[in-house]
């Protein structure tokens, strides 16, 4: 028989109002994957749960299996990422990472790796010397990699030629001028090298990468098109509000 009570360490990805005073919280947990749970009374000012089930919270949760959703019976905060509350510029970036992770994980598959990536991404966003642009690109590429889709960035995806100056989202990699794909976007070898480095190096090193404005533009186009094509993410609403 399934246990009526269970525990998990998780992150609040999203919260919405349920009925009069409850909240329905989307949690990304290390042990049980992604699921929704009810925080009863969490809209009330005197609620003990309210702060713990607010966006960006990472904590130990306990649940009771309910009819439709698990009911949150307890919560202990591990980290609350208050930087996103305090800095309105940072806030959309935190949400963007949450939205990408949310879209990528379809159900209750274990996703500890994505959880850790998201926690690391949020932590770095809150640090002073972080390059938010590079961090986000690195985060996108790593998410794709974890999900089993890494762009082919060493040579032409089709013929293996090293003189590849464009990227085809559909083919999932670089293209040379002979093989040309209809959806190819310009991507110079320098940009491809940066992308390779962003996939390989830890997130914390993404800010060390140097690139020109035009390379930045290329990288943004390529990662956005790649993610949209391969990960079936649909519209990422929070992307529009990033200052890029």
């Amino acid at each position, binding site marked *: 028989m399934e246990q009526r009570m269970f525990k998990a360490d998780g992150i609040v990805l999203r919260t919405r109002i349920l009925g009069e005073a409850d909240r329905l919280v989307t949690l990304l947990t290390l042990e049980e994957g992604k699921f929704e749970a009810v925080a009863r009374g969490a809209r009330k000012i005197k609620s003990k749960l309210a702060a713990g089930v607010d966006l960006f919270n990472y904590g130990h949760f306990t649940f009771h299996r309910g009819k439709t959703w698990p009911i949150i019976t307890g919560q202990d905060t591990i980290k609350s990422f208050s930087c996103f509350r305090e800095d309105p510029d940072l*806030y959309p970036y935190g949400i963007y990472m949450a939205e990408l992770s949310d879209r990528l994980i379809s159900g209750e598959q274990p996703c500890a790796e994505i959880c850790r990536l998201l926690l690391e991404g949020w932590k770095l966003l809150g640090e002073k010397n972080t390059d938010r642009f590079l961090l986000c690109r690195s985060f996108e590429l790593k998410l794709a990699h974890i999900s089993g889709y890494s762009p082919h960035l060493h040579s032409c995806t089709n013929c293996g030629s090293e003189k590849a100056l464009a990227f085809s989202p559909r083919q999932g990699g670089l293209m040379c001028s002979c093989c040309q794909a209809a959806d190819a976007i310009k991507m110079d070898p320098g940009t491809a090298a940066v992308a390779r480095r962003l996939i390989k190096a830890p997130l914390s090193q993404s800010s060390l990468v140097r690139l020109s404005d035009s390379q930045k533009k290329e990288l943004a186009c390529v990662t956005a098109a790649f993610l949209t094509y391969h990960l079936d993410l649909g519209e990422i609403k929070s992307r529009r509000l990033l200052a890029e």
Partner: protein
Amino acid sequence: MVYPGHLKKLVEALTRFPGIGQKSAQRIAFYLLGCSREDVVAIARAMVDAKDKLGFCQTCGSLAETDLCIYCSDSKRDNNLLCVVQEPRDVLVLERTGQYSGLYHVLHGALSPLDGIGPEELKLDRLVSRIRESEIREVIIATNPNVEGDATAGYLARLLNPLSVRVTRIAFGLPVGGDIEYADDLTLSRALDGRRVI
């Protein structure tokens, strides 16, 4: 359960109210059946009238029956003071305290990138021009004390600080009547930040 058709329809309609389940809906339905026809018509009319006649104030976004709400058109209110809230019902809650006599501005939401709500959707430029063209000296930001509300407050503060107004955030603290022992860490640390001399 087999109901006569119209009773079934009424019960179904009533269960759409927040907090009303099947049982309560049945009770209300029988209550209505027990009322005189005039009373039932009066109740129904009150609902339809409220829906038809209430709109939003052109100036502040509060509930209003004309272009201008009762707060904006009241010359006795303090027009140096403006309180920014998320929802029209927040205005009613603040009014209930009887402590506030300034003007209001209703955002009809908070910054929420997940729902595609940014500064444009909240029409913040209208708030800025309203403040510029008025005698407002202090803006009290009373958005909800959650991540969305706090981020909105931070954004507003940055937007409004260059104008010559004082921008304040409503205080956070312990709920009245509770025990400190049960307060969560964030509430308690904000209550410490917001302490004052007694």
